């Protein structure tokens, strides 16, 4: 757990006293692309390419980035819901990368997921009580009256009316369904929750309610969140630290307010400048990026952002920058950081 690389990396963080809950080292997830005659393997989509990252106990770490930047894949690979191609993952100091299926199942209750789609993440043929009670039944923790009691407790905890527990998910609204998903996720008292675009499918007022619920639960239950989101305002509201992803790389990591006020990577800067603000007359300088996000199966050489970066030089085209600390709380992967 203490190689030289890390000691330079992030250990200066103000949260250093708290423990690292989950850590990825040089994590890679490549998807093979097949095609042509006989389904030959043509290339790889490098959805997550050599990412190292630490998440501390009790914090909310957010991942932001465009669609296709590998945020969700990174989240799922961390929980081994998708097997990583290479690299290692540590959960509470334990290397879980090579755990067998059976051993992995035993620690799964510590890491849960809240999904994006409140319609797709609940089995339409199961009643709410079955949905929320499922984790108990799978892990043989409770049954019968005890199970019912736990379900009622959980429903109250997430702000659902327990008398509606014998209804089906289609009888609930999107926000309520998301609460069902949250109740299911916290049922086993996990330490770590991956919120994979957990509020993206909800409208803004419901988003706020669900996020406040998540924050309250974090405070009361001591949860650690990995929050994957599109909405930059939501991220700012909920996060302690933020990681910015671009084409499978982590380009910047830092404390949320710092990063929002003074982005160091040109991509972060562009991303944040386009974030809508409540005041329509506020003068802002938008950094509009040229072009589309390049294909992750054939990423640009050198710095992956050089094709769209306003500050790119010849060096950027050949030499890939590494994620290095630029201050106590900030790491950035850029040859010419803005701060």
């Amino acid at each position, binding site marked *: 757990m203490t190689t030289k690389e890390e000691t330079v990396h992030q250990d200066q963080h103000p949260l250093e006293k708290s423990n690292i809950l989950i850590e990825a080292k040089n994590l890679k997830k490549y998807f093979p692309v097949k095609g042509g005659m006989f389904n030959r393997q043509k290339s790889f989509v490098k959805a997550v390419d050599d990412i190292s990252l630490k998440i501390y106990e009790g914090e909310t770490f957010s991942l932001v980035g465009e669609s296709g930047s590998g945020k969700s894949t990174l989240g799922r690979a961390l*929980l081994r*819901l998708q097997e990583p191609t290479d690299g290692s993952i540590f959960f509470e100091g334990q290397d879980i990368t090579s755990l067998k299926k059976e051993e992995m*199942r*035993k620690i*799964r*209750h510590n*890491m*849960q*997921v809240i*999904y*994006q*789609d409140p319609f*797709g*993440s*609940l*089995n*339409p*043929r*199961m*009643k709410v009580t079955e949905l929320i009670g*499922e*984790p108990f039944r*799978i*892990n043989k923790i409770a049954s019968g009256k005890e199970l*019912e009691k736990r379900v*009622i*407790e*959980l429903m*109250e*905890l*997430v*702000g*659902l*009316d*327990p*008398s*509606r*527990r*014998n*209804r*089906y998910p*289609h*009888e609930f609204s999107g926000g309520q369904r998301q609460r069902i*998903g949250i109740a*299911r996720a916290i049922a*086993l*008292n996990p330490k770590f929750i991956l919120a994979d675009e957990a509020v993206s499918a909800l409208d803004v007022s419901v988003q706020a*309610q669900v996020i406040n*619920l998540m924050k*309250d639960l974090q405070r*009361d*239950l001591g949860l650690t969140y990995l929050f994957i989101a599109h909405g930059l305002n939501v991220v700012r509201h909920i996060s302690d630290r933020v990681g910015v992803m671009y084409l499978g790389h982590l380009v910047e990591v830092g404390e949320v307010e710092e990063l929002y006020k003074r982005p160091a990577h040109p991509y972060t800067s562009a991303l944040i400048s386009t974030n809508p603000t409540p005041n329509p007359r506020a003068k802002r300088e938008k950094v509009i990026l040229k072009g589309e996000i390049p294909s992750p199966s054939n990423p640009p050489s050198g710095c992956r952002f050089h094709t769209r970066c306003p500050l790119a030089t010849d060096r950027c085209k050949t030499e890939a920058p590494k994620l290095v600390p630029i201050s106590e709380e900030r790491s950035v992967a850029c040859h010419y950081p803005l701060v």
Partner: protein
Amino acid sequence: MVNVENKKQFSNKKLTNPSPNSPKPNSEEVKAISPWRDAMRQLRKNHFALAGFVIIVFFILLGLVAPLLTPFAFDEQDIINRLQPPSAEHWLGTDHLGRDIFTRIAYGARISLQVGFFAVTGALVVGSILGIVAGYFGRWIDMLISRIFDILLAFPSILLAIAVVAILGASLENALIAIAIINIPIFGRLVRSKVISLREEEYIMAAKAQGMKNGRIILHHILPNSTAPIIVQATLGFGTAILEAAALGFLGLGAQPPDPEWGKMLADARDFIQLAPWTLIVPGVAIMLVVLGFNLIGDGLRDALDPKMKN
């Protein structure tokens, strides 16, 4: 883990329904609308499906109470009264051996419905298991099973059935096995495609994240969600199976005399089509009605179970 104060705070803040603190087991006033209940309600509104249902119930009753309805035995010959037109004594006339056609149709309903039931059940069970294994586990096992389905589907079904019966020998049981075999890939492919789409659903991943084993995921999540297309196909397949059994009977490869199998009755009546058309028309209409009945129910079920058809 649950803090009482917080509970109250949450419920007061966010509940729209102001009775969070009285969760008695029976406090539910309105019945939950289960997806099945909803489908049944849809089905009842469908007049065609209802008509199909009536037809099938009629034939089931006919088969069940056949001995009470007629004084004749289905193999009772009366050569003197052969090829009689319908009359008060012989409601639907007699055939070339003087057997009462109504009696034979009623007893034949038993055979046809049994053939349909067992052939469909066999094909459904085997096909569903293969389809689930192929769809859920994918990779080489999917390749293997799918190619077997392709091979079975490459033959015209009746030819394949004839081949199977030719190998096993001509009898009603063997015809039933043959019909089950030719229907396996139809169920298998249907289930496989459904499972492949279900496998990517988020609730399957949620179950995996909770540490659920594959067997349980299949039983609790995959199966209940793939029953709708299976039921529809089973109903439609019932009709096809009866038709195929009749075809095999007609070719002399199914039920053997003197069993009153409808297809066999058609074959026997062929020679008398001008002399006594009722001997041909009656079993033909019976086959048509049963198949039509099952098709109507099947179509109705499909509409009722398909969420896209909801109004």
